[in-house]
């Protein structure tokens, strides 16, 4: 009953905004693999990538939109949506960190400035998404306050959430730790880079948007 009401509310919200497409946002901290996942989804279903990835944090500094992504799961569920790839949400941005990663000072300062704007833009977009995929680096501490804040904020807005523990191909990854941190949410472990477990991800995505 609760799920039905939630789904009805989200449909009405879309209708009031004058659009029928479902909007799915990829959120999470910097370098969790949001753009890698966005690229994998787009390559799987559209045949083209969405953005560039980099080992230096805050590579994505603007919200990117890919319209009319249509997926079909192995169990026959179809889902059409607009995919939003957002800049990583952070509470601190220091250009000196980018310099330590090898960028020259001018570029590091520019990147820091753009990154702050990107975080603001990502938070503003929370008003326009219907479902959120929170991408967490499964090798990192899942209790980071950024994760807790994003997920808490989504819960307060009654936005359905799917949590992805990414980078499960790495030895340090612990999906168990991610699941323990967010026991009330569906959690799927994937490696967006190598396409591991993507079918489970698509099934879970179809389920959470029902």
């Amino acid at each position, binding site marked *: 009953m609760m799920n039905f009401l939630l789904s009805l509310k989200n449909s009405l919200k879309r209708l009031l905004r004058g659009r029928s497409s479902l909007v799915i946002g990829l959120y999470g901290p910097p370098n969790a693999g949001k753009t890698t996942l966005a690229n994998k989804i787009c390559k799987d279903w559209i045949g083209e990538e969405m953005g560039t990835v980099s080992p230096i944090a805050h590579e994505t500094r603007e919200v990117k939109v890919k319209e009319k992504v249509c997926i079909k799961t192995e169990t026959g569920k179809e889902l059409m949506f607009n995919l939003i790839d957002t800049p990583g*949400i*952070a*509470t*601190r*941005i*220091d250009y000196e960190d980018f310099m330590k990663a090898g960028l020259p000072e001018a570029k590091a300062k520019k990147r*820091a400035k753009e990154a*702050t*704007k990107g*975080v*603001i833009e990502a*938070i*503003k977009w*929370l008003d326009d998404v219907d479902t959120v995929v929170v991408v967490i680096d499964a090798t990192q*501490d899942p*209790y*980071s*306050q*950024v994760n*807790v*804040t*994003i997920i*808490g*904020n989504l*819960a*307060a*807005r009654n936005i359905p959430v799917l949590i992805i523990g990414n980078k499960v191909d790495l030895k340090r990854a612990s999906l168990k730790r991610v699941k323990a941190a967010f026991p009330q949410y569906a959690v799927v472990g994937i490696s967006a880079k190598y396409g591991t477990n993507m079918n489970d991800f698509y099934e879970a995505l179809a389920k959470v948007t029902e």
Partner: protein
Amino acid sequence: MVTLHFVPHHEIASLTSVGRIRKLLSIAKENKIVLLEGRLAKEEEAELIKATMEEINKDFKGIELAVIKPSAGQLRGFERIKTEVVSFFLGDNAGLTIIGPASVVKSIRRDPHKIELLTREAAKK
């Protein structure tokens, strides 16, 4: 030297959301670690991050944020209802919110049972 600035819940209870965020951020910008009794609303926490990003400059690099809150799952029956009613009318004053300026606090590690605050001075040693 690290300065801790305690903010009792009643000091922010009557302020607007913007007022609360401005007050907490202005303390953090003085390089003090804010210990707020209770927590901000979830929407206010996101707004705090947004406001922090707007304030970042060469001197202010942002914040580290952590919230310690007794889990709702630990409360049962009447205690849980009482807590929710009090929170609804008076704001959420259970738990503790830590807001540390990034120039002072290197990282805050948190799990359900403990919280570790690593300052930049400690990290240098």
